[in-house]
Structures are given as structure tokens and as C-alpha cells.
């Protein structure tokens, strides 16, 4: 701490790296990649310091969400926007994920075969800066600027470097996300003018939280309340749409498989690992805190969509033959878990969501790395043409196995930690959710094994006849992921503790306007029928 602007440093470091790259001659591919990796590694170090600080020091600020490493400066005084940064237990590990996954992405940049490598690396670094900004902004306008600005480098990365289908997919992605986030902009403005009416000319999250929106009471029915269409509700819907598209939740997900299919591997690692988590992060940081009333009213709908995502993603993953599409739909299913945890509005659930954000980032990055390697070796992503890779690529098999197990949430891997905590939270909202989520887990093991075995097992096929095993450097990229998957599965304590530091604040905010809606659980049923001893 001691006055050094750590967060500004981690925000500006990648951007500075991107600038530095511009003075390197374009021919020096090694140097360009080296600088990129160095910057990414330095970022990891800085973030590690910050995460350590969050874990070991107590938060400052008497606001509803205590933050660490807070920085505040005036930005646009006329409309009260400020440069307000901060990090807490929720964002700390996501920040770490951001830096870590980006480092991996930088490591797997194909140095020789990438056209205009300098540009590529520069854009990657800018994307990292933008996602970092999203994670540390405490000012809604600043957040929005980063949120939307994130699209620019990503757009160019995807549009210039993807495969032949990239144009359509990228446009779809941008249109979807822009449509969602523009509405969020309106909602942010609504919040601003609400605050302005209350005498606060601000976009500052902390100030907005201290001046909550007027509570709208819904019409209570058994199991649910009928939401009232208030401005606050519309504002929440706008936020929710933006986040749901980014997350993505079914039915706003259709951009994702197309995009993942066309994206280049390093971008994909970064994108799937971090960018899609931004929606979940947004829900936690802004959705449930600012709009506790609407969230509670819409909770049945939101959890229903989360469950729908889980099951729909799983069913789709089960019926695909393209590896990237399988992983994409698997990702949708897993992100449904995260959404479920968040919308349970239970401390366990949200803790689980935070943990799962980190875990899923690791897992999905690993999956895409594996798919990337396999595609590079065999030239195909069609699961029907693959098979028998275990014989040819035993090391890949080992890593892939661990990653697969993480992805299907096997107890003992990190995927389990998040899922079980989320199910715990969901159960406390409504027991059936946990059951359906369990169905999702079951389907997950089906489609993940279908994919894993389809690639690895069976007789060696034509395309897999002559493939080489992982090179050392590739192994070096995959190994940390595999180790983390196991390590965080058997020792998730650090992640959970840091998250649990902050989450009660969020739960309190989310419950701030809760009106008594009785949700029957088994406990209630048993309490009703229990025989007095």
C-alpha cells in the first residue's frame, strides 16, 4: 500500500507495454514476443502483490463495500465522474485470473505464423489493460468506458486474426454486446440522475450504494413475487441484459459458439478465460448491489435462466462434433453455474460463483489450449475424425485428463469446489435448483467424456497417425493449469477465504430491500410434518 498507486500501475503497465512494442522494429519477432511475455509476467507479479495485500490486510473505507488499494481522482467534474479504483475479495482473484490467463495467452502466441505480430501483441496488451480496468473501476462511467472499450482491441484481434468465418461471428458478437451495453449506459445515466436528484452529482459506486434506489414492492405470491415495472426495474434489466449477453446466459448466447469457433487460439484463451467472466463479475459487483429490489423480484426468472443455461449448454455440447463448439457450449453450461450461484443471493452461492469464476477461467483456458494444440497437430477439429491420441500424445493426455476432470467437476478438482458451493447456495433458494444443477453435472460428465474419449481413445485414425507429442514449451503452458486444477481442488482455502472476506458485504446489500418471500425448502416441509417427539 503505502501510497504507491498499485492499481494504476497494473492498469497502465499493459498499455505501456503496447506502446513500447510500437518502437520495436516489426522484424524482431522474438523481441516482440519477449517483451509481451515480460510485460505480462510483470503484470502477474504486480497482481500477485495486490492479491497478497488483499488477503493479508484489512479493507479500508467505511462504505458498504470495503475496498483495498483505493485510488480516487477527479475525471469529469462537470458530471461527477471520477477516476476511482479499488479492489476487494471478489475482484482480487479475478484480477489474478486475468493476469495469469493473459500470460498464458501471450506465451502461446505463434511467433512465426502471426501476421503483424507487433500489432497482435499490442492489441492483446490493450485488451488486458481494458479488462483490468473493468475489474478495478469503482466509478460506473469509468467501468462502462472500460467495459465497452474492451471491445475495441478484442474486435480487431478477432476480426483480423480469426479463421475464415470470423467476419460474421465477430460482427454478431459486437452487435450483441453493443446492443446490451448501450442499454446499460442508459441505466447508468438513470442511476446518475437519481443520485443527482438526491444531491449527489456522481457516478461513484460507493456513493450510489449509500443512496439506494427506492424500494419497489412486488406482489407476493407463493414461490415468487410478481415484479413491478419501475424505472429501477428497467435499469436493472438493462444492466442484466448487458451482463447476460457477456456472460452469456441462454438465450443471449448464440454469438459465443460462432465466435469461439473462429477465434485464434491465444485470443480464445484470453477471451474464454477472462472476458466472459466479466458478465458474472458485473452481476456481482453492480447487478445485485445496486438493484437489490429488482433482483429479488426477478430472482425466479434469473435462476431459471441460469438453470436453462446449464442444461441447454450441456445438451448442445452433447450434440456437437466440433471440438471448439463442444467447449463453447460446455462453457455456457458452466457459466450457467456461476450465474446460478450469483442469483441464489446466498453467501455460499456467491462465494461459489467467485471461486468458480477463477476455476472456470483456468479450466476453459486449458481446454482451449488443448483444442488448439490438437487442431494444430491434426488439422481438424471434428471429433469424428479424431481418436487414439493417447497413444501418440501421452503427455497431452495427462494434462487433458486433468482438465477434463476439472471441467466435469470431479470432486477433488477445482471445478467441484465452485459447483458444490454454488449448489449449496442454490439449494437454499429453492431445492429443485440444486437437483437440476446436479443434472447439469451429470450431463457434463457425459459430454466431457464424449469429447475426451473421442479425441484420446479408440484406435489411431488417419489424422492422428503421425502427430507429435507436446513440445516442452507447450507442456510448460499446460502444466501450471493442470497443477492449479488439482491444487485448487484439494486446497481451495486461499481463494475461498479472500472471497469470503468481501462477499458478506454484497449479500447484505442484496438483501437490503428484501421483502419476506417464503421459499419452501425441505426443511420447511419436514418442519411441517415432523412428529413431535
Amino acid at each position, binding site marked *: 500500500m503505502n501510497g504507491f498507486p498499485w492499481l494504476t500501475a497494473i492498469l497502465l503497465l499493459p498499455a505501456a507495454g503496447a506502446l513500447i512494442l510500437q518502437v520495436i522494429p516489426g522484424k524482431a519477432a522474438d523481441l516482440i514476443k519477449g517483451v509481451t511475455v515480460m510485460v505480462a509476467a510483470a503484470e502477474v507479479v504486480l497482481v500477485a502483490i495486490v492479491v497478497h495485500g488483499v488477503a493479508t490486510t484489512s479493507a479500508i473505507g467505511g462504505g458498504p463495500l470495503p475496498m483495498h488499494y483505493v485510488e480516487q481522482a477527479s475525471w469529469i467534474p462537470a458530471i461527477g465522474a471520477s477516476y476511482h479504483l479499488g479492489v476487494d475479495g471478489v475482484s482480487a482473484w479475478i484480477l489474478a485470473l486475468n493476469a495469469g490467463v493473459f500470460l498464458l495467452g501471450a506465451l502461446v502466441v505463434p511467433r512465426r505464423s502471426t501476421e503483424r505480430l507487433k500489432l497482435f501483441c499490442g492489441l492483446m496488451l490493450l485488451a488486458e489493460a481494458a479488462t483490468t480496468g473493468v475489474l478495478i473501476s469503482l466509478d460506473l462511467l469509468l467501468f462502462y468506458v472500460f467495459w465497452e472499450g474492451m471491445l475495441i482491441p478484442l474486435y480487431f484481434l478477432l*476480426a*483480423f486474426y480469426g479463421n475464415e468465418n470470423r467476419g460474421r461471428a465477430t460482427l454478431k458478437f459486437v*452487435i450483441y454486446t*453493443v446492443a446490451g451495453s*448501450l442499454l446499460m*449506459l442508459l441505466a447508468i445515466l438513470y442511476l446518475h*440522475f437519481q443520485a*443527482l436528484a438526491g444531491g449527489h452529482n456522481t457516478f461513484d459506486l460507493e456513493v450510489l450504494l449509500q443512496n439506494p434506489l427506492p424500494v419497489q414492492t412486488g406482489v407476493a405470491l407463493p414461490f415468487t413475487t410478481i415484479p413491478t415495472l419501475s424505472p429501477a426495474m428497467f435499469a436493472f434489466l438493462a444492466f442484466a441484459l448487458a451482463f447476460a449477453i457477456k456472460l452469456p446466459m441462454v438465450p443471449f448466447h448464440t454469438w459465443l459458439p460462432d465466435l469461439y469457433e473462429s477465434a485464434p487460439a491465444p485470443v480464445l484463451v484470453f477471451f474464454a478465460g477472462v472476458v466472459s467472466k466479466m458478465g458474472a463479475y458485473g452481476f456481482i459487483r453492480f447487478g445485485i448491489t445496486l438493484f437489490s429490489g429488482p433482483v429479488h423480484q426477478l430472482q425466479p426468472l434469473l435462476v431459471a435462466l441460469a438453470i436453462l443455461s446449464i442444461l441447454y449448454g450441456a445438451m448442445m455440447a452433447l450434440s456437437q462434433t466440433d471440438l471448439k463448439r463442444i467447449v463453447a457450449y460446455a462453457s455456457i453450461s458452466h457459466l450457467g453455474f456461476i450465474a446460478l450461484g450469483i442469483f441464489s443471493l446466498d453467501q455460499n452461492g456467491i462465494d461459489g460463483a467467485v471461486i468458480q469464476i477463477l476455476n472456470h477461467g483456468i479450466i476453459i483456458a486449458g481446454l482451449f489450449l488443448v483444442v488448439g494444440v490438437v487442431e494444430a497437430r491434426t488439422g481438424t477439429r471434428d471429433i469424428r475424425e479424431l481418436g487414439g491420441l493417447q497413444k501418440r500424445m501421452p503427455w497431452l493426455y495427462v494434462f487433458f485428463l486433468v482438465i477434463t476432470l476439472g471441467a466435469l467437476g470431479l470432486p477433488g478438482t477445482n471445478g467441484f469446489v465452485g459447483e458444490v458451493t454454488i449448489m449449496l447456495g442454490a439449494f437454499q433458494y429453492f431445492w429443485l435448483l440444486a437437483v437440476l444443477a446436479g443434472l447439469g453435472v451429470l450431463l457434463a460428465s457425459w459430454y466431457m467424456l464424449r469429447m475426451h474419449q473421442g479425441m484420446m481413445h479408440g484406435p489411431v485414425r488417419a489424422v492422428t497417425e503421425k502427430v507429435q507429442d507436446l513440445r516442452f514449451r507447450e507442456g510448460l503452458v499446460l502444466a501450471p493449469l493442470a497443477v492449479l486444477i488439482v491444487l485448487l481442488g484439494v486446497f481451495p482455502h486461499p481463494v475461498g477465504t479472500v472471497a469470503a472476506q468481501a462477499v458478506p458485504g454484497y449479500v447484505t446489500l442484496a438483501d437490503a430491500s428484501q421483502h419476506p418471500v417464503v421459499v419452501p425448502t425441505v426443511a420447511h416441509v419436514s418442519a411441517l410434518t415432523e412428529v413431535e417427539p
Partner: protein
Amino acid sequence: MRTVNALAALPLATATPGWRDLVGLLPELIAAGGFLALMLLDLVVPPARRTWLAVFSGAVLVGALAVSVWGWYDAGSAGRSVFFGAFAYDRLAEFANCVILVTTLLTVVISPGYLNRRRLHHGEYYSLLMAATVGMMLLAGATSLMVIFLAIELLSISLYILSGFSRQEERSQEAAVKYLLLGSFASAFLLFGMALVYGETGHTQLAQIAEAMSRSLPVDPLLVGGIILMFVGLAFKVSAAPFHAWTPDVYQGAPTSVTTFMSVATKVAAFIVIIRLFDDAFASYYSRWSAVVIAVAILSMVVGNLAALTQNSIKRMLAYSGIAQAGYILIGVAVGVGIPLGVQGALYYLAAYAFTNLGAFAVVTVMSGQGEDLDSYDHLRGLWRRRPYVAAALAFFLLSLAGFPFTAGFFGKFLVFAAAIQAHNVALALWGIGTSAVSVFYYLRVTLIMFQRPKEDAPAYEWPRTGLAGSAVLLVTAAGTLVLGVFVVLVLTVATMAQAGTLPGT
């Protein structure tokens, strides 16, 4: 009997302009002097040294710019009226002057190269450009119906000629005729509106008009009709739908450097006068005209964006985009009465639009080769590979037009939408949002085309070298777009100050 007193004073009521009046007109005077001097220089300068004309124009413009900046401070926050209420010497005018002059200056810088490649005449070009600039600056400061009309005609007639400047090209000629006939037609509407406004209020000076209007508590239908007809005439100038139809044809046909200039500067000047008229002089009739302005704003956003969606000509696409941008700026105008943020947003948007659109058209100008203008989307195919920085600049400008953060366009849109929300006109903001989302599609489509490889069979378009002048202009516009997109406070403060002291002031 007050009337008798006034009657007695009549023959002696001969007001004479003094130095103070001339000081208020100084930038315009410098530019007008430049116009006259250019006409003469044209006769003296040898044909091979035509570039000197550009250099001279540039010098004049820089001078006028410097005086405008000085004028910003000299006019002070309140400003003053000069020439007996006919002209405003205030920060709004100086702000507009600066934007217009910078636009002209940048246009002048890229013009020689373009004119040379396209084998166009140099001589009258610069003088007419200067005349148009004078007209725009006069328009920006005009607070009298007469001055407004004359300034519009001055800039329009100059632009009619400039549109048809490429005498060997039929398209250019066609554009000029279209612009001329439709422009005169629109001017007639503007004039009829002015006649009604004058007649119903008894004044041509905005301050008095405003004063008379505020007294007219029951609504005067003829006055309302006059206001609407005036708005129609001005909406034509800013190419707002449904009075936009000329825009794509003229933008496409006119020489690209001229399009660059007129797409930006005309709009800035005309919007300044719209702000003066509607958010200030006609403010007391807000409830009467707001419906029409809002309708025009929505129509512009919808028509502009949707028509641009399926274009295959970059110049036409930018023309339609300009129509849409006019719609966004009109949001600020439409909600501007009583909500300062509206006008501030519109002004910010204008500055942002100036840099962004100028940059986009500058790319087209700079990349236009000898054979024909860079126009078809196919001409852009593969630009990314051959001219990465130019392509990046164009992409950046397009993103700014689409309103992505870190670009000027974002905060322009942000501020006008904010104003709409503040005015509780969420529907207007929603129209803006919806059409913005649509616009992303066609802006990005152009960038995607730049990424694509050139078609095998079609002959590749020969892009000229960028040149120092072109690079400088692109750099300046890109930097401007970036600065306005990040350090919002700079220009927003300026816009706030400009808005605060608007004349005529009611």
C-alpha cells in the same frame, strides 16, 4: 405618449458601427480579407506555384484561429452583441469559429495533393473555400435573421460552386445542380419562415424576437409556422432527415476534399445557429417546436443509420452516417431548453464529430488516387495490409462514429443521451441507443473489408502515398478524436463555457 416620443427620435436614430463592433467581427474580417487577397493572388501566382495559395490560405486561417482564441478570452463569459444586435461576439461563436477554422485548415492542408492527383483547378478553389468559411463563421455568430440568411447564402453559394468544381466530371456537375436547386428551394422555406417570424414579432434581431416571444403567452400559430419553416431550412443545411435527400448524392459527387469540408464545417455552423435560435431565442416556444425537432432527430437517426446499412460506397455511407450524426446532435438541441447538458452535449458532439468525420473523409481524400475517387468498398479491400496506419486511422474514426469508448464519439453520444435522460425523454435516448447499435454493423463492416484480401480478378485500387500533409492531418484528427475520448474534461469545460454565455440570451 411614448409612440410620439419615438416618432420624434426617428430621423436621428442613425446608429453607426464603431471599433468595438469591428473587434467582434475580427476573425471573420481576417478570413474575408484572405478571401479577397486569394482572388487577387490567384491572378499573380504562376501555375506551377499554386501550392502557395494553400500556404497563404493556411496562414490566414491560422491568423483567424489565433484571433478567435484571443476572442474567446476577450469576449468573456457574457459576450456582447455587436452591429446593433446583428452579430454575437461570444464564446459560442468563438468556439464555433475555432472548430470551423481548424476544419478548414486541415482541409486546406490535404487539398493540394488531392487537387493535383485529380488534376483539378487550384485558383478559385481556395478563395471559394475561404468565402465559405467566412459564411460559416458569420452564421455561427449571427443573431439577426438577415445575417443568418445572408451567411447561409454566402456559404451555400460558395459550396454550390465548389461541389461542381470538378468541371470535367459529370458527377460533380450533377451534384452541384442538385445542391443548387434543392439548396435554393430550402432557402426559400427558411426565408418564408423568417418572414413569418419577423412579421409576428416585428423584429429581425434575435434578442428582440425572444423578448417579444416570451410576451406572447397565448400561442401564435403563424409564429409557430414560421419557426417550423425556419427549422426546415436549417435542417436541410445540417442534412437532417427528411430534408437530407440531397446529402448522399452531393457528398458522393463533389470532389472529396470539398465533401470533407462541407460535411463538417457546414454542420457545425448550422448547428450553432440552430442552438442560438431554438435553445435560446425560441426557447419560450419550446413546447411548440420540440415535437418537430424530436421527430426530425429520430427520423435522422433511423433513416441515416438504416440507409447506411446496405451501402457499398464509402462516401455515401459517410453521408448517411452524417445524417445519423445530425440526428444525435439534434437530441441535444431538442432537450436543450432548460437542460444545459443538452447544448453542452451537442457542442461536445460537434467538436467530436468535426475531428472524427473530418478524419474519416480525410482518409478517403488522401487515399483517392489519380483515376477515380476512393469510393467503392472494393477500393478499401486490403488497405489494412498495404497501408496499416491509414487503415487503423480509418477504423479508429469509424469506431468513434459508432460511439465506442476511448473515442470522441463515445462522449458525444454519452452526453446527449444523458441530456435526454435528464429531460425524462427516455424514448429519445432509446431511439438513439437502438440506432447506434445498428450503426455498429455498417461501421465495422467497412473495417472488416479493410482486413480482407483484395479480390483476385478485380484490379487492385492504387492507393497513393500518404504524404507528409496527409499523415499530419490524419495524425491530428486521430489525436483529437482520442483526446476528446479520454480527457473529456478539456473540451467539456469549453463547451460548458460556450453554452453558458450564449447570445442573444433570454
